[in-house]
């Protein structure tokens, strides 16, 4: 059987669903093993170093694969299956000529709120077309009414806070991520975020999965990954609403999440692995995957009607987000290689220093800028949307 070594669908319920609903349909037995990033990578590297191993198929995020040496992944170009999105297919080449991984499933970050919060929406605000200022005002209203800050932000150790800055805040205020990192607009963006933070549950630094705080009522308005909100919608479909991320001066920034499957060069049974890849991309499989993980298909499928509440809510929100007039879609960071972590850390550090430690914004940005520039120079990664394209390494202006 094939060992499917994955960083996705880790929660026990999702893993269970992957095994029982998604992979049981594959002819061969599949051993689906989700792992934390640490063991995942360590085991993989060990097999690669040892030159032999038992992992047949890798499941991971774009970032997981981009950190790897391209030679270690089998070229999947000849497989004949790809995603429906050229952007994704391009990303999956990881800057090489060959397909390093096959896009597997996608998701995004959206907002969700408890219906209790709706009555405090600022006058004239459309929940499907909020601006950051309206979000702040809304949160402030809730704060005032309940006496407690009820905005929830996944700033915990496992939270995906950096994606908010990279894909949402910066594009919405500066129309860029790298180039505009330390721009004056960026200062404004951080000031706004500080304002929002006033109304953010201070325990957010412990929050990793906002669905828990939504359900418990510790947060009424939250931002998070679609799959990390799923439980709230599935458990209490009538209590919550999902809606697009807010817009700023330069539009409604948002960002996809892309997961892929790849085959390590040490895979014991290459054919079985490839067959499994093909199986994973089948429309039926993709729909089952959606049910199991709340990640959306990357191939064209007709979504059935009986999808879980979370999928329906999230799907609608994402559709509104990308379909909005001021949509300013960003891309996943590309070309960073194994510096993806360092790249994230620049933003996380900026957050911790500016917001938590309340250091001067300008000073912090100027300081962090140096590190960002160093990362870009070292990797030579060109700019990606919404930054204006660059020749060579994306410059920090």
């Amino acid at each position, binding site marked *: 059987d094939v060992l499917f070594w994955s960083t996705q669908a880790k929660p026990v319920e999702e893993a269970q669903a992957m095994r029982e609903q998604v992979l049981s349909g594959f002819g061969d037995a599949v051993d689906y093993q989700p792992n934390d990033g*640490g063991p995942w990578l360590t085991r993989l590297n060990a097999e690669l170093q040892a030159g032999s191993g038992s992992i047949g198929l890798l499941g991971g995020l774009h970032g997981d694969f981009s950190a790897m040496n391209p030679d270690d992944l089998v070229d999947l170009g000849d497989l004949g299956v790809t995603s429906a999105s050229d952007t994704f297919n391009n990303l999956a080449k990881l800057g090489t000529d060959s397909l390093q991984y096959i896009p597997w499933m996608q998701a995004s970050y959206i907002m969700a709120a408890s219906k209790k919060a709706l009555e405090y929406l600022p006058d004239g605000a459309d929940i499907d077309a909020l601006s950051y200022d309206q979000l702040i005002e809304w949160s402030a209203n809730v704060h005032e009414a309940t006496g407690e800050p009820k905005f929830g932000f996944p700033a915990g150790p496992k939270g995906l806070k950096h994606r908010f800055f990279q894909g949402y805040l910066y594009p919405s205020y500066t129309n860029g991520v790298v180039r505009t990192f330390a721009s004056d607009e960026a200062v404004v963006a951080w000031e706004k975020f500080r304002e929002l933070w006033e109304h953010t549950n201070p325990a957010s630094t412990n929050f990793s999965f906002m669905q828990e705080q939504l359900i418990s009522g510790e947060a009424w308005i939250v931002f998070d990954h679609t799959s990390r909100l799923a439980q709230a919608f599935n458990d209490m479909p009538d209590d919550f609403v999902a809606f697009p991320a807010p817009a700023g001066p330069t539009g409604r920034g948002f960002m996809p999440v892309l997961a892929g499957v790849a085959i390590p060069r040490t895979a014991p049974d290459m054919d079985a692995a490839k067959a499994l890849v093909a199986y994973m991309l089948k429309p039926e499989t993709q729909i089952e995957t959606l049910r199991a993980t709340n990640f959306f298909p990357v191939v064209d499928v007709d979504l059935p009607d009986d999808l879980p509440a979370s999928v329906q809510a999230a799907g609608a929100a994402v559709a509104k987000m990308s379909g909005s007039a001021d949509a300013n879609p960003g891309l996943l960071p590309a070309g960073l290689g194994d510096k993806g972590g360092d790249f994230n850390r620049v933003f996380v550090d900026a957050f911790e220093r500016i917001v*938590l430690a309340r250091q001067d914004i300008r000073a912090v940005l100027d300081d962090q800028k140096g590190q960002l520039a160093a990362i870009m120079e070292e990797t030579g990664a060109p700019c990606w949307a919404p930054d204006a394209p660059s020749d060579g390494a994306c410059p920090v202006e």
Partner: protein
Amino acid sequence: MNARILPYVLILPVTIFLCVFFLYPFVLVAQQAFGTGSGFSLENFREVVSYWKFPISLKNTLLLAAAVVPIQLALALLMATMVNRMQKGRDLVLYIWTIPLGISDLAAGLIWLAIFEQSGFLNTMMSGLGIVDRPVNLLSYQHPGVVFLAIALAEIWRATAIMLVILVAGIGLIPKEYYEAAEVFGASPWKRFLRITLPMLRPSLQTALVLRVILAFEIFAVVAALGGTLFPVLMGETYAYQFDLLNNGAAAAMALIILAISIAFTLVILRILRVPKGATI
């Protein structure tokens, strides 16, 4: 067997074991800390030490160890003496006290988060008792003191049993006759504890303290659960270098720094608690 080579024969299995399963990988990893491929360099150390979170995490780690270990020691000693003089039900009591041993640090973090979070048990009880009119947010960046306290409490709860078990085993081996003699010669229970238990327990104390201090510098999971990102500690930073930043050299350098601190403290403990030659049973 010859008394000169016998000790070496006895430590041989452990040595082989540790050489193969610890020292060999350790050397490989430690090498990475000193330079990247070619030549010797302290660049990795410079990098990790100059990172702005390093002083904070160092301070946090030391502070936590300083707060937690002495309390645990005192508590473990108290509990050990208590079970030792207990007649009825002592294995039940000891069992209860050692329960946290069986709980991994991840699970312990979980348990204590369930207590301290805003919708947690502590708030339930406090609002039930009318101390607060609505649940307070205890684990927030606004209350660093409470966060520290929560982490310390969880850690004390979780890891006191480690010392307790070692001390209980040691305390039981102290011959009763010495307590009797001390008692006859006018030593109060407290004095007996100070003058008999403590000195005669030195070897066990040494072991318990050393192991505990080393573990205290490796604290991570409980802190991550309760302190979130508010309370960076050295080991968390190490893992961040290794698994988030994929910077093995820096991670190894961090680990070596932790190692150095642990060993330094260990040597101090061994020095303070050494048994003078001849003063053994």
